[in-house]
C-alpha cells in the first residue's frame, strides 16, 4: 500500500493545520517578583497559543490555579481531532475488522488498515511492518517472547535462545524493557547483561567496550531510545552497529522518542521499535511494535487466537503473515484510529517544529531549575540532544510531598521512581520528581513549577 494514501483518507480534518511562521512565544510578566528571571532566547517555530487551543483540558482551572500539566512523559493530553476521529468511527462505522463481511465491516477494516498506514508513514515504515499491541509494554513483551522462544528447525521460525546466549539491556531501562528480558532469561537460561550510565545519565559506551559487553554470545540488545527519567538520548546507531557486527537483534523502546522527534526507522539502527499511543496525543490501549519485515517474518507468534492464523485443524494451525500473525483476537480498532489521528495531528505541526519547541522549553527549564536551592538534577545538565523529561530531587523531601504542594497550585508532575528503580539506585536516590514537556508546554508553566518548588521549600521549612 502506498504510504501517502493514508494521510488524506480518514483524517482530513487535520490537513488544514500547518506549521505557522516563526514567531516568538509571547510571555507574560513573571507572576512572582522574587524569583529570578532567566532570559533564554526561545527560537520557536510553533505557535503554542494555537496548539493549546486544540487541547480543551489545558484551559482547566484547578481550584484557583490554572492547570500546569508537566506530566506528558507519563500520559500526554489529547487534542480535539483525536477524540473526534474516535467518536466519528464509533458512532458511524463500528464493526469488527477482517471478519465482518458486511459494509460496516468493510468500512471498519478499511479505517483500521488506513490507520496502520498512517502510523507506518509517521515513522518511515512499510504498512506490514506495524504490529498493533495494547501498549509499549505489550509490544516489548511480544518482542521478548517471540525473539527468544522460537524453536530453530521447527519450521515456525524463531531464534531459540539458550544457556550461553546473552541479552544486553541498560540500567536506564523502564521496567517494561527490563522485566520481559529478565523473564526471557529465566525461560531460556540465557544471561542478562547491561550497559551502565555515566553520572550524567548518558550511556557509558567506553566502559561497555572495556567490558566487551556486546560480543559473539550477544543475541539481543534491548535498550531505551531515550530515558524516561533523565531525558538522555541513547547513541542507538553506534550501539546498533556494534550489535549488528555480532549478528545480534536490536530492540529499541521508543516510548519517549517517537512522540517528540522526527523518527525514520530506516536510519534509526534498531530492528524492532516499540512505542505507545497515550504518550503522543493518542488514546490509551494502543501500542505499536515496528519490526523490519524480514525479521518479523522469522518470528513465531506471541498470543494465539483469531485473526493470527491461516488454517486451523484440531491438531495444529498455520499462522498468518506479519503483521496479523502477532495480532490475535479483535484488536483495539478505535484506539488504532485514534493513534493515527494523533500522528496526523503531530505531523500537521511538524515533528521538527515540535522537537525544536521542546528543546527551547527544556533549555529554559534547565536554567530556571538551576536557580532553585537544594535541587539536584538527575541526568544531563546541558539541553543538547536531550529529551523533555527532567528529573530531580529537592533537599531530602519525598517526591510525594513535593508533588502534593505542587498539585495544590495546579502543577501536575510525577513523583516516584518512574518505573526505573535500578536507575534511581545508580544515582543513589530512592525516587525523584519529574517534569516533562510537550508541544503545548509554555515557559510560563516552567515559571509556575519553579515558583511551586520554592513554595515547597518554604512549606517544609527547608534551610530555616
Amino acid at each position: 500500500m502506498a504510504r501517502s494514501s493514508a494521510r488524506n483518507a480518514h483524517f482530513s480534518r487535520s490537513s488544514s493545520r500547518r506549521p505557522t511562521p516563526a514567531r516568538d512565544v509571547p510571555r507574560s510578566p513573571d507572576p512572582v517578583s522574587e524569583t529570578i528571571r532567566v532570559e533564554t532566547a526561545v527560537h520557536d517555530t510553533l505557535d503554542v497559543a494555537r496548539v493549546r487551543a486544540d487541547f480543551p483540558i489545558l484551559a482547566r482551572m484547578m481550584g484557583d490555579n490554572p492547570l500546569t500539566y508537566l506530566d506528558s512523559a507519563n500520559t500526554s493530553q489529547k487534542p480535539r481531532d483525536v477524540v473526534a476521529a474516535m467518536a466519528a468511527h464509533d458512532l458511524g462505522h463500528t464493526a469488527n475488522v477482517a471478519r465482518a463481511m458486511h459494509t460496516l465491516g468493510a468500512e471498519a477494516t478499511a479505517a483500521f488498515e488506513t490507520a496502520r498506514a498512517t502510523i507506518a508513514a509517521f515513522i518511515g515504515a512499510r504498512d506490514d511492518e506495524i504490529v498493533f499491541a495494547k501498549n509499549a509494554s505489550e509490544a516489548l513483551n511480544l518482542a521478548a517472547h517471540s525473539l527468544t522462544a522460537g524453536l530453530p528447525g521447527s519450521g515456525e521460525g524463531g531464534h531459540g535462545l539458550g544457556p550461553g546466549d546473552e541479552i544486553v539491556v541498560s540500567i536506564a531501562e523502564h521496567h517494561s524493557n527490563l522485566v520481559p528480558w529478565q523473564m526471557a532469561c529465566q525461560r531460556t537460561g540465557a544471561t542478562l547483561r547491561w550497559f551502565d550510565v555515566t553520572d550524567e545519565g548518558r550511556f557509558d559506551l567506553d566502559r561497555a567496550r572495556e567490558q566487551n559487553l556486546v560480543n559473539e554470545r550477544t543475541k539481543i540488545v534491548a535498550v531505551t531510545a531515550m530515558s524516561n527519567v533523565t531525558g538522555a538520548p541513547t547513541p542507538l546507531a553506534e550501539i546498533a552497529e556494534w550489535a549488528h557486527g555480532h549478528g545480534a537483534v536490536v530492540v529499541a523502546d521508543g516510548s519517549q522518542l517517537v512522540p517528540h522527534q522526527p523518527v525514520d526507522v530506516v536510519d534509526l539502527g534498531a530492528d524492532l521499535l516499540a512505542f505507545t499511543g497515550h504518550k503522543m496525543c493518542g488514546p490509551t490501549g494502543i501500542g505499536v511494535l515496528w519490526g523490519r519485515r524480514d525479521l518479523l517474518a522469522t518470528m513465531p507468534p506471541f498470543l494465539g487466537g483469531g485473526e493470527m492464523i491461516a488454517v486451523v485443524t484440531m491438531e495444529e494451525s498455520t499462522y498468518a503473515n506479519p503483521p496479523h500473525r502477532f495480532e490475535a483476537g479483535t484488536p483495539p480498532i478505535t484506539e488504532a484510529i485514534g493513534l493515527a489521528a494523533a500522528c496526523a495531528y503531530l505531523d500537521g505541526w511538524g515533528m521538527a517544529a515540535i522537537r525544536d519547541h521542546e528543546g527551547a522549553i527544556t533549555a529554559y527549564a534547565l536554567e530556571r531549575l538551576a536557580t532553585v536551592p537544594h535541587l539536584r538534577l538527575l541526568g544531563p545538565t546541558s539541553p543538547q540532544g536531550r529529551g523533555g523529561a527532567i528529573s530531580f530531587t529537592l533537599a531530602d523531601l519525598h517526591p510525594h510531598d513535593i508533588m502534593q504542594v505542587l498539585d495544590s497550585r495546579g502543577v501536575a508532575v510525577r513523583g516516584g521512581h518512574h518505573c526505573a528503580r535500578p536507575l534511581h539506585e545508580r544515582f543513589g536516590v530512592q525516587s525523584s520528581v519529574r517534569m516533562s514537556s510537550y508541544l503545548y508546554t509554555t515557559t510560563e508553566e516552567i515559571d509556575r513549577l519553579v515558583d511551586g518548588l520554592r513554595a515547597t521549600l518554604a512549606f517544609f521549612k527547608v534551610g530555616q
Partner: protein
Amino acid sequence: MDLQALYQDIILDHYKAKHHSGLREPFEAEVTHVNPSCGDELVLRLHAEDGAVVDVSYEAVGCSISQASTSIMADLVIGRTVEEGLALGEGFREMLEGQGKVTLDEDRYGDAIAFHGVAQFPARVKCALLGWAAFRDAALRATAGQTEDK
C-alpha cells in the same frame, strides 16, 4: 485543595523527629513493607512479651505522611497489648477509608487524629497506612512464632 488540612503541624513535627526510629533487638518478628507506586520502604521489628508490645523499632524511607504515621503508630502501640494495637489500627484504617465521615476518639488516638485530613486525599491513604499494615503483619507473625527477613 487544603494543604494545611493534610499537613497538620503534628504530622510535620513527627516527620522532622521520628519517635522510636532505628532497628533494635530483641524482636520476634521483622517485616518489610513497600509502597510500589512511590517506592516507600519500611522495615519494622516487633518485640512483644506475654501479649504486650514492648518495642516497635523501624527503619523507613518515605514521605512525611508515611513516616509520621509510623512514628505515631509506634507511640500508640508500645505499652499496649498486641490485641489493643491491632484494634487501634483497624479503627485508624476505617477513619482513613471513611472519606472524612469517620472521626477518631482523641483520648484513644492522641496525635493520630491529625491524619483526619488525609482521608480527603485518596492517593495518600496508602502512605498513612504503611506503618500500621507493617505492625499488623508483624503482630500476626509474632503470634504465629515466625520471623521473616525478606
